[in-house]
């Protein structure tokens, strides 16, 4: 019957440690002889093994230097240091270097940063101006029904009062394209026009003989009736005087004292500079009212320049 081997070759260390060759059992001796040449080799290995361990005890101990401990502890502290502090330290060293010759780096960096800020500011401002110009150009678009390509050149000077809610004073002198436009709210206009209205009312009779405003040089309240194609001229007069006009207010109905014709509006290209709310809506209202007045057959109509009340008011305002 074949006996199962009790030891592995790797376990020979335990045999070497515990027993000499003569003390081995028959099975153990057979196992040893299977891996070793004989008794001598076994004893040599046993002697070596027994000698190695005591020899290690007698070895001189090596003490590490103190610098090793301090270095590794310093490395540990550096590792535990917060990273933001490390980053801050590097920034501080960069901003305030010990060597004076190294200051050119932060100086160059900050100079470049300042230049970029200034350039960005200028660019933003430039962009903002372009935007406003675009807005104004958009407002300059005149509705198609108000366009009159056959209208003559605008007069040298035109002062127009908007009885609805705004006073528009436009100057167009010769080739100068500049136009100053002011818009005043209704309340302001009412407060300003009030005294002027009374003054005009008092001076109305006295100035009947005064030189009248040249109708040909001013807006003549003439609108060409192009729809019928006859070219007939229809004059729209201002009915009543300012003294009889209702007080100007936001809620008050549009007075019929003065009607601004489309031709006036066509002549004044600067009307586009006025705010849209103050420009388009009253213009359309006036056009509608003018048509209504025309239908009524205003035989007693007068030209705008011949209206002393209006001219007095314009003079007072001017």
């Amino acid at each position, binding site marked *: 019957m074949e006996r199962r081997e009790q030891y592995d070759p*790797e376990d020979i260390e335990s045999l070497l440690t515990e027993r000499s060759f003569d003390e081995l059992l028959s099975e153990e001796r057979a196992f040893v002889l299977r891996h070793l040449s004989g008794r001598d080799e076994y004893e040599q290995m046993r002697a070596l*093994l027994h000698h*190695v361990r005591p020899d290690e005890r007698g070895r001189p101990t090596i003490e590490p230097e103190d610098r090793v401990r301090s*270095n*590794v*502890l310093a490395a540990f502290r550096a590792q535990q240091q917060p990273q933001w502090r490390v980053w801050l330290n590097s920034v501080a060293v960069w901003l305030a270097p010990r060597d004076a010759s190294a200051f050119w780096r932060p100086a160059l960096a900050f100079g470049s940063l300042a230049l970029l800020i200034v350039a960005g500011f200028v660019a933003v401002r430039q962009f903002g101006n372009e935007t406003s110009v675009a807005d104004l150009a958009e407002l300059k678009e005149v509705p198609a029904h108000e366009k009159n390509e056959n209208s003559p050149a605008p007069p040298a000077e035109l002062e127009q009062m908007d009885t609805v809610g705004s006073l528009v004073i436009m100057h167009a002198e010769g080739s100068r394209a500049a136009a100053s436009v002011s818009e005043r709210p209704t309340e302001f206009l009412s407060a300003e026009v009030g005294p002027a209205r009374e003054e005009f009312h008092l001076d109305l009779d006295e100035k009947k003989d005064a030189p009248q405003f040249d109708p040909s040089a001013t807006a003549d309240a003439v609108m060409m009736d192009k729809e019928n194609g006859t070219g007939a001229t229809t004059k729209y007069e201002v009915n009543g005087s300012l003294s009889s006009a209702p007080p100007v207010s936001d809620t008050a109905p549009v007075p019929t004292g003065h009607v601004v014709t489309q031709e006036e509006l066509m002549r004044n290209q600067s009307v586009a500079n006025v705010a849209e709310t103050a420009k388009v809506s009253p213009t359309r209202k006036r056009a509608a009212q003018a048509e209504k007045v025309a239908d009524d057959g205003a035989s007693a109509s007068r030209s705008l320049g011949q209206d002393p009340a209006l001219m007095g008011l314009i003079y007072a305002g001017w």
Partner: protein
Amino acid sequence: MALFGTEYGKLSDERLMELVVRGDEKAFAALYDRYHRRLLSYFHRMLWSDKEKAQDFLQDLFTKLATRPQSYDPSRPFQTWLFSVANNMCKNAYRHEAVVKEAAVHLRNGVDRVEATDGVGVDHERFRDRLDEELDKLDPDHKATFVMRFHEDMAIKEIAAAFACSEGTVKSRLFYTLKKLAERMKEFDPNALIPHGTARAIRP
């Protein structure tokens, strides 16, 4: 729980490593104090008895531990993991040496020696030098296994864990290393060096 200075010595290696990962400097210092001599001796034996190189390697090892404590695998015993790292460092050192054995012979002349005071001391010193010389000629894995087993007195299981191999492989390496050393050191009379009655129980 507050940890006082006296308690660090009672904590296990693994518990100390947990504290090290959390940034406890005292735990790190305790681990250093616990292992620095053994590791220095290991490096000294593995690196051709070069004391300066051993100190540098010791510093590098603990610097790695300080900078990357998360690399420690908590599932493994700390001692095993630490010696496996040390063994890998020694392997790298062997690779970087152009002529390892020549360097070993060269360094052999400058080995730090302890002056013997009597005849027995002289014999032990000669045996020690010869053993180191023969160990340097061995394969690095066999040498490291031998050093861990007989110099650091590590268990077979711990060595196997350090090398990430089976216990049978460790035993086989030890057997053939002993057999080779016994053959090469025939001129020594081992029987004269055997301290009588010094046989002791070995760790399994």
